[in-house]
């Protein structure tokens, strides 16, 4: 943060304080600071700014000048979208009354209620909303590492990894073997690996490589929308995708660091392309601040997303332990709305509407063919629980599946509009 920027911030605080009628002797307008420009953080900041108006000063801190969304990155792998379509500028939120700071947060001073940024400056907060996303547990997969990911792309954080996967996919010959390693729960985007398998098969099949094989080595005995995916795989890519649970492969033992094979307890799987999606945990920022549990996720109060470890901090999105909600962009945005409203209630007083969390995960199986699962969530016995859910059914007509694919595109436009539009 530059001096100029800090001075602007001070002026903004003083200015908005006057507008809100804060008198002398009273502290200025409360400072709500949001860290993370993904769907959780961006929607939290936008919601707080819209509903709080001049009564709250909203700052959004994001390390990168551009944000590449994981959501819809499988559409890029499929060639249906470009990297530019999933690359966004969080700073655009600055056009909506939010002070956007592009800097890495080095540490959270919980005692002093301030962030320490990479440039040495401090950002004090009255309330902090953290949306740090996930980090990978590279060390839990023998043979895998940050370096090995250059040979066995995870592409589970979008950006260069996505482009690497696309290049590697393009370079495969006819009859190639692709091996995917899929992590145990919980992880970001539960149906994502199976959508990716479908869309990689789409790329291979439509480029004269329909004899390629994709083998999914799963850490789980079942997966979301399993019957729907398996039906869709067979409809579009018969014989191309093989899914193997641990009861069949025996469990992951190691990956070959050179990126050519995966060893399980029962077998060895050679791959011309090996993609490893590692097990995950909350983003380091939240864990370094002591907000995580023994499993590396952040427990929160169900009604407010307030961290159980610190009443001045809310944790939202993939990093949070949010009951029955999956780790999705939709869920993160929904939690961002709840967190913003709860923060305003805490900072400004007044009533606190009962949360209505919501999620929908659309999965594309082929262009114009999608399935979905979703639910309304409420609070029961202190936890976030599904109230009313819905899921696509096997055997749905092509028309129904086409409409689901169009819904996915409409949702994508809507969440971008809510984040940065």
């Amino acid at each position, binding site marked *: 943060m530059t001096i100029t920027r800090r001075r602007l911030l001070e002026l903004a605080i003083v200015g908005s304080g006057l507008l809100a009628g804060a008198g002398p002797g009273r502290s200025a307008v409360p400072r709500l600071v949001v860290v993370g420009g993904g769907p959780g953080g961006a929607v939290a900041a936008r919601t707080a700014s819209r509903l709080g108006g001049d009564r709250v000063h909203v700052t959004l801190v994001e390390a990168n000048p551009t944000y590449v969304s994981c959501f819809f990155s499988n559409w890029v792998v499929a060639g249906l979208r470009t990297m530019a379509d999933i690359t966004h500028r969080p700073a655009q939120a600055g056009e909506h009354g939010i002070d956007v700071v592009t800097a890495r947060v080095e540490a959270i001073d919980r005692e002093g209620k301030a962030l320490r940024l990479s440039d040495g400056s401090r950002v004090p907060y009255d309330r902090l909303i953290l949306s740090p996303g996930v980090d990978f547990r590279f060390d839990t997969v023998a043979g895998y590492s940050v370096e090995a990911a250059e040979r066995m792309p995870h592409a589970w954080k979008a950006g260069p990894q996505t482009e690497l996967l696309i290049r590697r996919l393009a370079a495969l010959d006819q009859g190639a073997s692709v091996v995917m390693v899929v992590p145990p729960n919980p992880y970001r985007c539960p149906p994502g690996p199976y959508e990716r398998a479908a869309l990689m098969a789409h790329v291979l099949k439509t480029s004269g490589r329909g004899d390629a094989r994709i083998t999914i080595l799963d850490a789980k005995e079942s997966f979301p929308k399993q019957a729907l995916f398996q039906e869709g795989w067979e409809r579009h890519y018969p014989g191309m995708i093989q899914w193997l649970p641990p009861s069949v492969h025996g469990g992951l033992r190691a990956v070959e660091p050179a990126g050519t094979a995966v060893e399980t307890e029962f077998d060895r799987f050679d791959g011309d392309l090996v993609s490893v999606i590692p097990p995950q945990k909350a983003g380091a920022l939240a864990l370094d601040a002591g907000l995580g549990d023994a499993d590396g996720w952040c427990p929160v109060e169900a009604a407010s997303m307030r961290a159980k470890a610190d009443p001045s901090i809310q944790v939202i999105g993939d990093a949070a332990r949010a009951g029955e909600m999956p780790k999705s962009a939709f869920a993160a945005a929904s939690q961002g*709305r709840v967190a913003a409203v709860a923060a305003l209630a805490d900072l400004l007083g007044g009533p606190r509407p009962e949360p209505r969390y919501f999620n929908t995960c659309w999965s594309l199986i082929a262009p114009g063919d999608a399935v979905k699962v*979703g639910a309304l969530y409420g609070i029961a016995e202190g936890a976030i629980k599904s109230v009313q859910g*819905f899921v696509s059914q096997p055997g749905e007509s092509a028309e129904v599946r086409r409409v689901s694919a*169009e819904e996915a595109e409409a949702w994508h436009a809507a969440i971008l509009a809510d984040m940065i539009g």
Partner: protein
Amino acid sequence: MTGHRAALLGAAVVVGLSAAPSLADGSDDRTAYLAETCRGCHAAAGPSAAIPAIGRAEPDALAATLRDYRDGRRVHPAMAAAVAGLDDRTLAALAAYLASERPAP
């Protein structure tokens, strides 16, 4: 929040309430929050798509549509879940609030 309160007064007329909701009972904040949740899927403005934009909806018709989704007269499982458990008065206030929002110029 003045505009929102006006919208709520409008909603009260729509459903024939004798007393308008007030800020004190929290209805205003609840309606504003519920309207935000719609953004999870619906753009405020834009071309008609598989998920329609709702920025220019007419309040009476929108409230009726929301009741139809809730009560199963119109079938869309996601919309049914989205409005599950919301009473007529809440839906009327929500529809009025949404109709009062205008796309940014």
